[in-house]
């Protein structure tokens, strides 16, 4: 079959534009798809840090980005998870990796709960190699033994401007044609589809498909095509965020830290050259000025490059409308607490690739994409709402616990977790059941029971297995290099 040549124009800014353009260009460039990138002015503040989840590795592989050069170029660092620190409470670590290993096919979490009920005093994260390594300032480099034990995935903290420059250069290298403009005018065809985009200099960019990567402004999908947006605002306490940079830590922690304050939360993203600080708060409770003071106090440092933005969590009712696909923040805005923003973008790109039209007829693809993306985004939203719903923290910001009525699935999931220490399996879930368990438990939600099959395991067997795992974690962690030293050697190699 001979293909109709397809032209796809990606319009937008920052990571949403450059990650989409570079991946589409690399993956489809050799299959007769012409990718055009239309760059709008960046809105990234100077000191901004991008935090990624482990799955980003798949896109980096597609782009042939090597870890060493990525971290060298962006002065970035590793992130094994998020440490959650709240006044008056024990901190807990939400690791991207696995907690414990199953015992005779039984989930570790349930075995651990049974042991705790009988006096075991080791916290859940004591069985998570990457959590113990990270909180001790160490890497956790996978080997056969750790792979057999469980996942030790990590993401990155990258200085955004350098990362964007890298993605932009990769886009060009992948044959993506670049245009720049400060404004666009959308031209619709007789059939209602988008026919072309007019740039500042009146150049008309025609294409078969348009990708809206214009972030919150959603210039194509929301503005031009008037796709309605479902707001999730009522479920989230923060409607405003500060972004800034603090000096780098002397010993760079290989994780993000969430610092809870009575009036909001700060997320610290350490890198080699600086620490990104995001502070999420409610504009009804605090002015920007007070928020800046709070953020500075909470991060224990003077902040530079302070910028504010509004948070409008929500999602497009249809992410693919006519011949326009919205990805990233144009499709779905999330709360900053769990570092999922890049993951939202990645989900949109990956599914666009797997459903990229093979001809001029793509109704089936459009319907499937819309069905899939809503499901993915709803599951991410549920994870975030669960965090705020269960948060036991004190202070005005935390006083209004959001309800669980965003979806029936969420209320049921929390109910079944409480009853049985079980995360109901659902399609299109981004976070593992171990993530759910670590976060819910860390917030103080302790299940009432577990599967009775757990009670049939002998005490001897449980004791032996726990002992073996703890020994393994200790031995593995002690083998690991310190994060800073590892970064130094990695970035020096081949430089």
């Amino acid at each position, binding site marked *: 079959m001979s293909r109709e040549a397809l032209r796809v124009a990606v319009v937008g800014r920052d990571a949403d534009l450059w990650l989409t353009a570079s991946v589409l260009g690399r993956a489809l460039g050799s299959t007769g798809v012409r990718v055009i990138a239309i760059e709008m002015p960046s809105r990234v503040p100077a000191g901004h840090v991008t935090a990624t989840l482990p799955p980003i590795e798949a896109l980096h592989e597609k782009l042939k980005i090597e870890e060493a050069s990525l971290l060298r170029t962006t002065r970035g660092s590793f992130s094994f998870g998020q440490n959650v620190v709240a006044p008056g409470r024990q901190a807990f670590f939400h690791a991207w990796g696995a907690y414990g290993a199953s015992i005779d096919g039984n989930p570790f979490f349930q075995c651990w709960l049974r042991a705790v009920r009988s006096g075991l005093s080791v916290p859940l994260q004591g069985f998570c190699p990457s959590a113990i390594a990270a909180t001790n300032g160490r890497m956790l480099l996978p080997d056969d033994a750790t792979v057999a034990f469980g996942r030790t995935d990590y993401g990155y903290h990258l200085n955004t401007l350098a990362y964007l420059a890298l993605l932009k250069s990769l886009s060009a290298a992948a044959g993506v044609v670049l245009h720049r403009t400060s404004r666009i005018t959308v031209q619709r065809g007789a059939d209602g589809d988008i026919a072309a985009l007019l740039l500042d200099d009146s150049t008309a960019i025609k294409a078969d498909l348009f990708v809206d990567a214009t972030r919150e402004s959603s210039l194509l999908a929301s503005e031009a095509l008037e796709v309605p947006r479902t707001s999730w605002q009522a479920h989230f306490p923060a409607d405003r965020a500060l972004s800034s940079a603090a000096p780098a830590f002397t010993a760079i922690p290989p994780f993000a830290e969430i610092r809870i304050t009575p009036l909001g939360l700060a997320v610290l993203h350490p890198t080699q050259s600086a620490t990104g600080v995001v502070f999420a708060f409610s504009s009804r409770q605090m002015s920007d000025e007070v928020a800046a003071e709070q953020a500075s106090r909470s991060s224990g440092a003077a902040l530079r490059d302070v910028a504010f933005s509004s948070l409008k969590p929500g999602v497009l009712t249809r992410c693919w409308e006519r011949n326009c696909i919205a990805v990233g923040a144009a499709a779905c805005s999330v709360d900053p607490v769990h570092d999922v923003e890049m993951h939202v973008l990645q989900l949109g790109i990956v599914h666009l690739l797997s459903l990229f039209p093979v*001809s001029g007829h*793509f109704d089936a693809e459009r319907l499937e994409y819309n069905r899939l993306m809503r499901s993915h985004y709803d599951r991410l939203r549920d994870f975030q709402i669960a965090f705020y719903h269960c948060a036991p923290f004190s202070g005005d910001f935390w006083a209004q616990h959001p309800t669980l009525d965003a979806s029936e699935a969420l209320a049921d999931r929390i109910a079944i977790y409480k009853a049985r220490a079980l995360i109901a*399996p659902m399609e299109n879930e981004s976070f593992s059941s171990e993530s759910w368990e670590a976060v819910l438990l860390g917030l103080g939600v302790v299940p009432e029971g577990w599967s009775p099959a757990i009670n049939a395991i002998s005490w001897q067997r449980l004791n032996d297995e726990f002992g073996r795992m703890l020994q393994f974690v200790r031995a593995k962690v002690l083998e690991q290099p310190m994060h800073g030293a590892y970064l130094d050697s990695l970035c020096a190699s081949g430089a």
Partner: protein
Amino acid sequence: MNEGVQPAPRIMRIVILGGGTAGWMTAAGLRRQLKPEHYSITLIESDEIGTVGVGEATLPHIKLFNDALGLNEAEFMRATHATFKLGIQFRDWGQPGESYMHPFGAFGEPWRGVEFQHQWLKAGLMGADPGPLQDYSYAIAAARGNAFEFPNGDPKSIRSTYAYAYHFDAGLYASHLRAWALPRGVARIEGQVLQVKRHPQGGEINALLLKSGELVTGDLFVDCSGFRSLLLGQTLGVGWEDWNQWLSCDRALAVPSRRVEPMTPYTRATACEAGWCWRIPLQHRTGNGYVFSSRFTDEETARRTVLAGLDAEPLAEPRLLKFLPGRRRIAWSQNCVAIGLASGFLEPLESTSIFLVQAAVADLIRLLPDPGCPATDSRLAKEFNRLNELQYERVRDFLVLHYFANARHGQPLWDYARAMQIPDSLQHKLDLFRSRAALPSYQYGLFSRDSWLSVLMGQGVKPRAYERLADTLTESALTERLQSLRQRIAANAARMSPHSDFVAGYCESRHLAQESAT
């Protein structure tokens, strides 16, 4: 940590009603995972109530269930007169005369991130004549040669690309599980239920009064009473969701026939005028049957059809079974959980009945209330019901595909099926396959992508295009690769031993072994 701080647990009394395959799988599965001092298990069965127990074909998952019980495979196969199963052959489902196999195995291999069907489609469209898709499955090659061997564990080897299941006598399987369960503390009561005693306020079940006058009390009741659904349906009044609009068949005539050679390592499902006929080879006989729709034929015609289709002398008169396609709206209501036919029925076209039992038992163990806690915990019931619904709907859609995508023009059942409005969940899968040869991707429930591929292609659903990524494969490399794959499959399959010999050497049933000795 030590056991001393645990309060002495009370006992939860689990009563299973019905001793067919579902009842004994439930009893054995629960007994294997639950401590006797926490859960007592009693099963009530009646020798007077027959079980449906015809020759049964299974899915590979059953091996996990048997392994968990610690059953010795050869002994289990001997005891149930079992043979191996590599898939199902579908005859006459497209144009009459056509046939395809749904194997328990992969088609080809992904290459540079491109799934196999795209490589194959591309090769065909560029005129390289890759031959039928079915030639790229090792399991199919083995099945065609009536051969069998165990898959090996080397993921690089073509001989690791399949799984297997069994054909067995379901009645004997139930007996085999009973023999496993009784010495391990499952109590068996012979008897029939006269009356179900319910709590006057809550309405949950308190006890079963047997005809013998014995009163069997319990905390949780598992309804394995088959189509009657005595507890969940008749007593608790849980409604029925009828799927007759998609699955018209509501009768079956079962008849055993003498064993013939070669003994096929696969089930056969042959489409007929008003339904389809099964053929299940066991060691001592062949199980046959005609699943038909009473809307489209009468019993006498059906009887003639099933007898005419036999490849050997019948060993009994055809026996009639009546059923309704669909499921109870919920499977766990109050303190009653229905498993097996008591919770729903889907025709055996894809051998899913025992799998659905197995999945329900596993979910029940995960969600079983603690001793001393109410068995009516709605949180547990709700999750069980959600999972149960998912399993049934996944299977339903897959079955409906076989009927909907047929090419049997001019036969009323099949003309109806082609014109029917199918569930949305199936329609979008079909649309996507037609548009770009994309296979359904979901994590939970049956069936695998390879299964969908075999049936979609087998039923004649034609993709209009393949993935763009396949365009990055050069034509010469693709041709070479496909050729070598076919050769590897053919060469390896040719070295397998005949299924009959394999079964005789591994697990020949005792009375058969005696017969051949005399």
